């Protein structure tokens, strides 16, 4: 079913945003996040952005101090997901204006709204930035 979860983690390994598209208990989530974060943070620049973990494939990308980790099925197109991360970042950029970790921390709900507009049930719904941001702006107006 495509995307299983999306995580944003900072360099210290603290989770900044987590969205799962399948049900895991809190303990499972915590364990999974710990394992993945350790694994990904340990990798260097020369290594590729894909890691296999359990039965997921993790696609990750680093923006300054923030890591974006997306867990996908094994047969998902990795590069497409990699670019989807970038699209997400660009969208946030457009909304917040040069987005940073603090933006996401203090406007967690907005980050969630955007994500909600882009991904639904593990599938990509919308890739047009204007369309993604309309409901979020609507929220701000009212």
């Amino acid at each position: 079913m495509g995307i299983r979860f999306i995580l944003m983690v900072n360099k210290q390994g603290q989770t900044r945003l987590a969205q799962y598209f399948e049900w895991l208990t809190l303990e499972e989530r915590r364990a999974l996040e710990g394992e993945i974060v350790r694994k990904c943070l340990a990798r260097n620049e020369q290594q590729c952005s894909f890691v296999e973990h359990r039965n997921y494939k993790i696609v990750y990308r680093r923006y300054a101090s923030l890591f974006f980790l997306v867990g996908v099925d094994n047969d998902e197109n990795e590069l497409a997901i990699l670019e989807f991360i970038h699209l997400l970042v660009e969208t946030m950029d457009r909304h917040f204006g040069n987005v940073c970790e603090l933006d996401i921390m203090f406007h967690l709900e907005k980050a969630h709204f955007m994500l909600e507009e882009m991904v639904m049930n593990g599938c990509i719904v919308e890739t047009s930035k204007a369309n993604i941001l309309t409901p979020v702006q609507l929220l701000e107006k009212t």
Partner: protein
Amino acid sequence: MLYIYMLGYDVDFGHMEAVSLISAPKYPEKQVGYIVTSCLLNENHDFLRLAINTVRNDIIGRNETFQCLALTMVGNIGGREFAESLAPDVQKLLLSSSCRPLVRKKAALCLLRLYRKNPDVVNVDGWADRMAQLLDERDLGVLTSSMSLLVALVSNNHEAYWSCLPKCVKTLERLARNQDIPQEYTYYGIPSPWLQVKTMRALQYFPTIEDPYTRRTLFEVLQRILMGTDVVKNVNKNNASHAVLFEALALVMHLDAEKEMMSQCVALLGKFIAVREPNIRYLGLENMTRMLMVTDAQEIIKRHQAQIITSLKDPDIRRALDLLYGMCDVTNAKDIVEELLQYLSSADFTMREELSLKAAILAEKFAPDLSWYVDVIFQLIDKAGDFISDDIWFRVVQFVTNNDDLQPYAAAKVKEYLEKPAVHETMVKVSAYILGEYSHLLARRPGCSPKEIFGILHEKLPTVSTTTIPILLSAYAKILMHTQPPDQELQSQIWAIFNKYESCIDAEIQQRAVEYFALCQKGAALMDILAEMPKFPERKSSLIKRAEYSEADTAEQSAIKLRAQQQPSNALVVTDQPPANGATSPVPVGPLSLAMVPSMITTEDHTSTDQALSQQNGSLTKVDPQHPSADLLGDLLGPLAIEGPPGATVQSEHNAVSRLEGGPDAVDGSAIVPVEEQRNTVQPIGNIAERFHALCLKDSGVLYEDPYIQIGIKAEWRAHHGRLVLFLGNKNTAPLVSVQALMLPPAHLKMELSLVPDTIPPRAQVQCPLEVVNLRPSRDVAVLDFSYKFGTNMVNVKLRLPAVLNKFLQPIPVPAEEFFPQWRSLSGPPLKLQEVVRGVRPMPLPEMANLLNSFRLMTCPGLDPNPNNLVASTTFYSESTHAMLCLVRN
């Protein structure tokens, strides 16, 4: 609140608030309510039922934004109940032309969720046409969502959706030619790469394309993609275009297109694996591996061998390794394996195990000659001994044993290795085994006299662990045996060693030392027992099996499991155990004083006490294996004409006994078979026999467990009826398939097992009730034949079910005035049985009483005038005998 939750705390106090926000009239409140709900709750949560009506009102309402929110939530967490009540509304929304695309795209994905929950919501007949209509959509947002829906539908049933195929191709063409794509949907100049990828994915679910026109169009598009993609400066653009390109490659492979296009693809891949960008190189390698499977492109790929070998030096070598493994054949095996060997010493630690396993398999599979294979394995052990699993050296031993010409070569070779200053323990094991078996073949060479060989081996003894010492001891015994004419000095040396280890704390070593020592003194008998090992029957390499197994898993996990599998690795190298056992009975019976002589006397029903007796033998006494109880039990069982040869039951008793002793006698069936005992690739967790014995005393617990499955049992017993429930729990995140459970009931039990589902979904538990009726008393045990498949692994286990005699007992208290008349009214066998259990370990009285109670024999304290006597009573139930009073006194 989300923040708290994300940090990993439970926030159930807020669930109710969130759900009630959904019904708020204002947009922001509703929005927050919906999103929090869909993040925090799962589909089975009770609160969701409260919201279902509000959600429905929002969906059929007029307000578009509300519709969107409701659809999104249902799309994320909607369960079966939602599927049943909302599906028609959602379908209507998706197809209506009056709705804005905004709503319709959500509706498409919402429907997808509902479809997954309940496949009936989309009735296939009419839906295919409508789906095709949907694909004519101009809005790319809706198209993206619909395509996801289509992928799901098609993956289940591609035949119904033929009509969608040309539409997909058309969409793809439109995208690839960049016709009529709004600006906002292009990403770095590429028209929605995600939609392109999705469309090609959908196409891959159709087996072939028959319509020539569609096929031609598709190929044109693919060609365009293949040729039109260049490496550019901008990372994002580059990634996006390559995402499309790789998907196109996958599609080409799937369609198995013309040769020309294929070689184009390979050429492209060859280019990719040479680029600097790690992502693309990684994917290039991965796709090349995939390509190996679908076509006969091997020859073309081989041209890139050098390049692939250089990528072994990458930090991410897994892919390259897989690819090399896949492309290896007889012609290039030698190069590749040597390359792998060379790389082994510099490789990352996590990789070494896999690397060595693969090298070993390749060497075995494609070895041009066997001596080369032996060389490779020895090098492997030498370089990465820590990562060599026992299977690898077992296998090489197997080869050597089966090939006469190889034996002297191997023996000479290991001797060379042993002479090096630092030798890995695994090497010591192999060498000890091979030298023990075949060193006499070298005896004429210089420096290879038995004494010298012994000297080399013995040097290593102080450095090795307890698992290796037994192998060394065996080797000594064999060297000694092969020494013709006998060498007195060597003999005394070796005997001294045996003597020393006779008091070793490790039971295995102790047993061997004692046995070999005794055997050596026997002289003639020695020859037969220590003769060369017989040839092993040809079987499939356990390595290959393991590789299959580990491929089903990720590298890391498999490493852990492999290690777990190696635990029971002290397989024996003893040849004929029974005579050895007979010659030197390892159980010292005499010294154990008879501290307690319980007499067990049964009344009315022998078998129940028999059962109890054997249970006790199994669990609390130490009995000489040659105990005459076989006859005794046979006699006892005779009059009642009960099925089941007494020998067999006694055998099981022996097993129980030996298990208890754990040490010298623990040569059960599996260990007698020499080294390469073919193991189930999946090792059970915990001791099955122990679990069974525990369950004989309890009514619920775990019957069997391995890395994939756990079988629990819960039982209720009433008179001669029993009701068991088997809990089959899948511990993995992948489903277990081909699950089969078969009851093999003995004649005295009637058993009915309800239907066991064929698959167990991930992390789910299935309950299977099982009815048992006891027809007549017997000691046989019911067996459950259970098998399942995980990945390519078939696992089959036979489990004894704890439906034993004592389960059909029901304790009743008997007052003293009734007990003794009853007792006296029973005169002698067969109704009354008295037996002295010999060689008993002393056991405190309360413990004994507890044991009887857990067998459902009710102890009646104070009944017997002598406080050292235990008295117990119970009733036995079976269909043929109904209730029978049983009394026990000891």
